[in-house]
């Protein structure tokens, strides 16, 4: 597991253990990856983050068209061997998105159950917000490199 925010690690580890999920990606609604487990290539993470955010945006718009108050809670794609759970959830740091894949050793119900606990534990573990640092153009590349190193290791 790789995390950008250390306080995400424990709730995410517990969620992965309890739900038997295989892969997890936690990101902000703007697409910034906060934590990942199970991905080995940064390209896969960036693709999954973009696609996941796109799917949630699409279902949010569908919800608006059919007159559902707010967004749908979660989107589930169930395949023969694997399923995908995609959900937006509120945190003290704003709305985040989680993308979870699970196999036959788990189930939609189990992921739903422990995902709700994960969101609660994350909210409880969130430290008070600090002043947002301004990312200057000259520091952007270094900030991006630091984030990628934190998420995938390496030098």
């Amino acid at each position, binding site marked *: 597991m790789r995390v950008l925010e250390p306080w995400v690690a424990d709730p995410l580890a517990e969620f992965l253990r309890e739900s038997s999920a295989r892969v997890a990606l936690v990101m902000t609604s703007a697409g910034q990856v906060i934590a990942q487990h199970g991905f080995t290539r940064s390209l896969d993470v960036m693709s999954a983050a973009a696609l996941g955010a796109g799917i949630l945006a699409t279902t949010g718009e569908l919800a608006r068209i059919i007159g559902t108050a707010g967004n749908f809670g979660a989107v589930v794609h*169930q395949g023969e061997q694997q399923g995908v759970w995609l959900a937006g959830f509120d945190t003290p740091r704003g709305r985040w998105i989680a993308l979870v894949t699970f196999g036959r*050793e*788990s*189930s*939609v*119900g*189990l992921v*739903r*159950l422990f995902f709700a606990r994960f969101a609660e534990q994350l909210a409880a573990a969130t430290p008070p917000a600090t002043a947002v640092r301004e990312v200057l153009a000259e520091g952007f590349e270094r900030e991006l490199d630091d984030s990628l190193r934190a998420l995938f290791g390496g030098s």
Partner: protein
Amino acid sequence: MSGDRWQQILREVTGVPGVRGALILSADDGLVVAESAMDALDTADVAALAAMLVSRAGRCAAAMGTAAPTAVHLTARHGALVAVAGPEPLWLAAVADHDAELGRLRLLLGDFAGAIG
């Protein structure tokens, strides 16, 4: 099988003294198919965990070289979960207090489980 018949079965199960709730769940995805329960009982959570229990029991039976389980009975200090297999992938389950008539409950679940398909 109509939803009305399911509800009739679930009402009969919850009519057993000490039963806090009954549900039909899909063991494949751990979701509630139909339910009849007291407000305090979170049937969605029960369905998810019961499905996991059934899945683990199935793997345990396979490892032992025995047939897949057709009933699971979990007893805890303050209550019990009894689940009986219906037509694949459905299970009929009930959550009961520790002093409920568990024998009668299990017989009733067995009688009804085959009829929920």
